[in-house]
């Protein structure tokens, strides 16, 4: 089981544990508690850190160089948070000050943990409880079951300006397999460690049309492990100008747009798995639930409603999300602008509502039935709803290319940081700009701290 945490919470965790690792001092053990929610995805379950519950004065009943006792009051506070906030459970974290690149649970830990966990499961049946021990540069984690057996936690994934992967098996760095020669020329940009992570990650590509088909191609050739494609639209002739690999004969039977991409990935022989999600429309609850299965989301849609859902998933399930968009601006059939945009949405960063990519007005319109939608348009108070927007592959490629590089950066940083909230390219002006946005006060998506890591506690805005 993976453990996902935001960059801010990872920093807090570091802060609370740091006092055990001051050089050249005999430091006491210390600890904290991680409140967690479970991502119940059957294919890719994970624990999401909702909050690092800081220890207060008196929260450690005993604290020494080789012992630490969490007071019942501290554990009680965590348990009450779990109950009142509807969380899944919590993990205790304690340090072993003398451990550095390797750490493991002591015999004393092993002797006492089962009784504590049994007590917690007795008080909160159906909860999730576990423990983590931290060395200076290593972690080991385990999740206990009500029957007093435990299973190891596999990996701590920090989601933020970059993605950080730390093993929870007690070692300081994961075993990195030798990369295949296929990826030799890319190793300078995506090294063996990052490639190993790419190849073990599942990428959700939402939309397999203009930008989506390009993203699938880039992911396949970057060494992605698995691609899950969400698409519900049928291919038609008007897609032939921009959907990669789409042929005239694919259009005739009215196939799903994703089918051709699926075929091409399969035929490539590259080490990547691909699957197309049945139905594909993420505004439907059962389809949106499959987004939880992914380690990374790439939004290649042209509607605000799915973008809103993707933003919610990014915050609630701590899954990084890159959104792509292009726009051909016309005035009396004369090209005024050719814009490509890539936005990176992750906990701690503004959402697409705050950046203005998604507007409540369009979300409201897209949520109406067709008849109601027409009535509203006929009243003339939709300010910027566009139907049949023009699109060309050339411009889509600019967005897909930026998104591909941004994705690689997140696995192995090489871009200027902190990352801008959006990268906007204006092809007509030959300019690429970094754009940052202010968070809106009380934003329902990124302005609500309770939503972060909340998993299923907040409903997704689906049908």
């Amino acid at each position: 089981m993976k453990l996902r945490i935001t960059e801010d919470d990872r920093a807090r965790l570091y802060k609370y544990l740091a006092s055990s690792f001051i050089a050249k001092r005999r430091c006491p053990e210390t600890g904290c508690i991680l409140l967690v929610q479970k991502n119940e995805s059957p294919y890719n379950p994970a624990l999401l850190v909702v909050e690092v519950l800081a220890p207060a004065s008196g929260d450690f009943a005993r604290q020494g160089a080789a012992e630490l006792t969490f007071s019942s009051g501290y554990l009680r506070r965590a348990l009450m948070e779990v109950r009142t906030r509807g969380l899944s459970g919590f993990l205790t974290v304690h340090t072993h000050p003398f451990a550095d690149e390797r750490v493991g649970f002591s015999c004393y830990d092993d002797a006492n943990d089962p009784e504590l966990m049994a007590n917690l499961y007795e008080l909160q049946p159906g909860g999730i409880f576990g423990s983590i021990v931290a060395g200076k540069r290593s972690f080991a984690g385990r999740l206990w079951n009500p029957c007093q057996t435990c299973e190891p936690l596999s990996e701590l994934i920090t989601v933020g300006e970059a993605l950080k992967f730390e093993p929870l098996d007690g070692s300081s760095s994961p075993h990195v397999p030798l990369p295949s020669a296929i990826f030799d020329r890319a190793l300078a940009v995506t090294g063996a460690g990052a490639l190993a992570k790419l190849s073990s990650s599942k990428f959700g590509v939402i939309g397999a049309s203009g930008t989506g088909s390009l993203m699938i191609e880039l992911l396949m050739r970057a060494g992605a492990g698995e691609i899950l494609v969400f698409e519900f639209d049928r291919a038609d002739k008007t897609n032939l100008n921009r959907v990669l690999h789409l042929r005239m004969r694919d259009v005739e039977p009215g196939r799903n747009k994703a089918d051709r991409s699926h075929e091409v990935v399969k035929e490539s022989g590259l080490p990547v798995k691909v699957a197309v999600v049945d139905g594909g429309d993420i505004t439907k609850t059962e389809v949106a639930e499959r987004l939880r299965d992914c380690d990374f989301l790439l939004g290649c849609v042209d509607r605000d409603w799915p973008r809103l859902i993707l933003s919610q998933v990014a915050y609630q399930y701590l899954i990084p999300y890159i959104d792509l968009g292009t726009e051909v601006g016309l005035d009396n059939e004369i090209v005024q602008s050719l814009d490509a945009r890539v936005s990176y949405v992750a906990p701690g960063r503004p959402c697409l509502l705050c950046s203005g990519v998604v507007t409540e007005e369009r979300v409201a319109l897209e949520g109406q039935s067709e008849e109601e939608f027409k009535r509203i348009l006929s009243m003339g108070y939709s300010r910027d709803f566009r139907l049949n927007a023009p699109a060309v592959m050339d411009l889509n490629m600019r967005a897909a290319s930026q998104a591909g590089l941004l994705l690689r950066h997140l696995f192995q940083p090489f871009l200027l940081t902190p990352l801008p909230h959006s990268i906007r390219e204006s092809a007509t002006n030959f300019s690429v700009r970094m754009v940052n946005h202010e968070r809106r006060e009380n934003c329902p998506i990124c302005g609500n701290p309770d939503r972060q890591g909340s998993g299923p506690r907040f409903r997704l805005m689906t049908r």
Partner: protein
Amino acid sequence: MGSEAPGQPATISEHWAEHPDRALPEGLLEFAEGESISIELSGLRVRLSTQKYPDGGPIHFHAQLGDTLKEVFVKASHALDERLLPPPPLSPLDVFRLRRHNGHWGDPVTDFELPLWVALAEGFTRHTSIEYLREIRINTKWGVASKRVMTPRELLVEFGFNPEEFSLYRRDSKDALPPEIPIELHRGEHFEAQKDGKYGGGTAPSVARGNQTIEDDIYRLQTEGLDLVLHTVGSQKYVEVRGVHIPSPPWSHASANIMVAIPATYPIGALDALYLEQGVTQGGGVPRAQATVPILGRYWSLISWHYATARPWNPTADDLGTHIEHCRGYFLARGVCQ
């Protein structure tokens, strides 16, 4: 079975069944030797009495001859309007007794699977008693507190928890009970023993604004007295608000039915405008009316009544309730229309 003539020996009859003090019919003793009774007799409802042990007033109740003593125990407690503890499926710790013919209470019943008719045949009367004890729950464990007033430390020890490792809390409380300060214990109280963590070593969350469903809003507003109906037409939801009070004059009626189209993306997807059911007019017309459309077999005028640009829909503050207020502004000729 038949009606019994006065002065005759007791037989298994409805008359006998209704009089708890009647002598045991001989037939029942014969059946006891045979170790079974007929299905018909097993279903015979007999009247019994019960009381709180030792000196409560008697209350009558009925049980079937074939009931087990556990079933009789539950029925007796029900008659006394008290809950047995711990609740099912655990076995009660409260004490059930049957009175002997010599007027003394028997020992506490331990064989609860024994059928009532066997107990009667073995010499017990149809008078029962229940001794309600001071059952306390700590975590999942139920037990009987030995004293009415005990310290948390004593209570932990009595329930098998080591007070050096566990602290006692009231259910859902963050504050540990001081271990040495005595507390008065009440039957049915629930405590929690929380362990220290040695290393080295429901309540459901409320729905936050912006995350609620339209059904949540409707439920809340209905409890506040609004007459709301949720309609679904294909994939479109509408909320009909019946009997909205409006000023008359200038309106032709003192109340109106309005309807609001609910986007599937609600509440981040904003509510906007309203439908007014035909028939309510102002000076013979309907201000700001757009199209008239049939919905649900009735005719509605779509009213162009929107939020101001400077004060747009805010999903963390606005909801169906505030939107209805916004719509009332139309009838009161307030608000902003773009």
